[in-house]
């Protein structure tokens, strides 16, 4: 009897192939720019549109608001918009991790709020060093995420119920931490600066350069790996076109933000500090989801948890970790809110979570799990934030304002759904 060769059961590729096969099956990388483009177009027609409808919705809404208010298309409002949207973009990205598993975290908003209550009390009342307090606040996020993760992944309680319980409980905890009727001012200049100060003008350009360089670097790294494996590479022009588009659009944004947008004599210019932070989280998160085992397993578990389990994926661990990540990033979102509002009260984070989920869904992330990317949630968040931003310029009574916000949300989702429908994607809609 001949035993198979030792311990290399999982390290070596099979030697089963009769001979090395030379004509590979395609991989979608073949052909020139025009072929790549038409392939993309037909994928889009097939319904794989990602954030495209949300981008369209964003543009439509922007045009609408710029007709309705002369203030909408100003550098100043652009900068305001970015800081206003930051907390929702952050929360939307946090939620994508759990939504990709078909789960939900209703407590994400109040987790951020609670962490900030703790932070503000530690700094303002117990006079702890603000940075140490911030570490504690993020640790609270990790603890909350672990708690949810444990109950959902190990015990098997539906995440809706666990996080609803925390949603209720944390509102109570916030009240206990802050005290009845209380609120505390955010007095740490570094935190206030997050949302209220800007990079120097050169900093904005540097930021752009870094992101363009990153984009080029990853693309060329991929190409080198493909070349090494001797599989076809897409046209190099595609890489340059992408980087070029990033450069032009990003350049326009940085340029606009480099203008003085102050109404007074003291100049205000530069990219708000929060922007590079959000972009960095977006980039890192996308990197993890696209290029690491952990990210791949999130999609696998979201698509078919049983198949993933049978493939050896530690489903419980993955489920646990997404909640930890979500709560951690949610604290970041809470921090942005606290910095922008300048104070923390006992209701912090109560209202934002449904908007966060809506951001993800509007952006094209499937609530059933397995489909969606961080950038989708980011674009979805911009859509929702632009509704608030634009309506805020129109001076409507409160009731009407709500009605219109709701209607526009449904409208934006309709654009999304209709474009998917027309393209025959209906089959794969659950």
């Amino acid at each position, binding site marked *: *009897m001949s035993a*198979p060769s030792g311990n290399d059961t*999982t390290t*070596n590729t099979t*030697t089963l192939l009769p001979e090395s096969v030379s004509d590979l099956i395609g*991989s979608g990388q073949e052909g020139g720019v025009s072929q790549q483009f038409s392939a993309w177009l037909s994928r889009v027609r097939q319904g794989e549109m990602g954030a495209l409808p949300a981008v369209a919705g964003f543009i439509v809404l922007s045009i609408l608001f710029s007709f309705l208010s002369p203030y909408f298309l100003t550098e100043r409002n652009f900068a305001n918009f970015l800081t206003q949207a930051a907390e929702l973009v952050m929360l939307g990205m946090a939620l994508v991790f759990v939504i990709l598993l078909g789960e939900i975290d209703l407590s994400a908003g109040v987790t951020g709020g609670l962490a900030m209550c703790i932070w503000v009390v530690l700094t303002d009342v117990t006079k702890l060093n603000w940075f140490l307090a911030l570490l504690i606040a993020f640790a609270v996020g990790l603890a909350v995420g672990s708690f949810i993760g444990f109950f959902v992944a190990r015990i098997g309680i539906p995440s809706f119920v666990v996080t609803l319980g925390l949603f209720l409980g944390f509102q109570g905890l916030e009240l206990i931490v802050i005290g009845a009727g209380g609120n505390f001012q955010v007095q740490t200049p570094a935190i206030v600066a997050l949302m209220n100060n800007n990079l120097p003008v050169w900093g904005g350009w540097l930021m752009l350069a870094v992101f363009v360089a990153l984009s080029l670097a990853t693309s060329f790294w991929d190409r080198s790996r493909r070349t090494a*494996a001797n599989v076809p590479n897409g046209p190099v022009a595609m890489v340059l076109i992408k980087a070029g588009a990033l450069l032009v659009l990003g350049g326009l944004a940085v340029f606009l933000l480099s203008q003085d947008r102050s109404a007074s004599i003291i100049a205000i210019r530069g990219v708000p500090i929060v922007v590079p932070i959000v972009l960095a989280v977006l980039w890192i998160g996308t990197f993890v989801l696209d290029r690491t085992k952990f990210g791949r397993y999130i999609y696998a578990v979201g698509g078919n948890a049983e198949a993933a389990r049978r493939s050896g994926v530690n489903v419980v661990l993955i489920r646990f970790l997404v909640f930890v990540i979500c709560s951690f990033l949610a604290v970041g979102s809470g921090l942005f809110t606290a910095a922008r509002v300048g104070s923390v009260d006992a209701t912090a984070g109560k209202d934002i979570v449904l908007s966060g989920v809506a951001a993800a869904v509007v952006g094209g992330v499937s609530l059933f799990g397995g489909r969606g990317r961080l950038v989708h949630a980011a674009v979805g968040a911009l859509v929702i934030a632009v509704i608030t931003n634009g309506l805020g310029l129109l001076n409507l009574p409160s009731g009407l304002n709500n009605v219109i916000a709701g209607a526009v949300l449904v409208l934006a989702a309709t654009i999304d759904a209709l474009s998917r429908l027309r393209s025959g994607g209906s089959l794969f809609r659950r």
Partner: protein
Amino acid sequence: MDTPIIELTGVIKSFGPVNVLRGVELRAYPGKVTALVGDNGAGKSTLIKGLAGVQPYDEGEVRFEGRPVSLTHPRDASALGIEVVYQDLALCDNLDIVQNMFLGREELVAGTFDEGRMERQSSEVLRSLNVRTVKSVRQKVASLSGGQRQTVAIARAVLKKAKVVILDEPTAALGVAQTEQVLNLVQRLASQGVAVVIISHNLADVFKVADYISVLYLGTMVAEVPTAETTYDDVVGYITGSKTYNPTGARA
């Protein structure tokens, strides 16, 4: 007599009131192909899922290379070098072919994926299985035909070298040429020393590739016989319960 790499004894499994496996024995030998046959609902897939750690047995002993092992999770099985093609395929519809084939065993460079290498390997294995209609290895598995899906599942199982390969009705959805290739593959695996267990309802195929035939009837193993020592009609008889096996050799 060969030494079995896998040896099951007294395996029992129930789902509530339904006793699916009632004290089953099974052996698989390195370098040999063991066919597991039986009527629909006899408990073949249940037996296999226990070996894969997917649905642990209620009772019974599993010996691997002579040592008793506990298989309570799919990772236990893959750690031992057991690869399984499930009857229900168990693929992630939202992932593409390469991603499915390498799920749980991705090729890495510096902690991130080596997509090029994985693409090449997927492509090569699929080609070797006579796949001609798949346009791209980056196609989502959701859009594949029944046979294409099955081929992906098989390719996945033979991608890495395993000690035991278990195939649950691997050719059910395959075309003539592809079936041929898979049977070839099974024989090639065995010739490399791998223990292969194959479940099939196609007795012609079974007689073509198997060294041993084990017959499961209503949750009990009614026959375990070298292919050479039995006939098509006997096996059909065991399967349908119309014949009983009386071992003539030394094996009980």
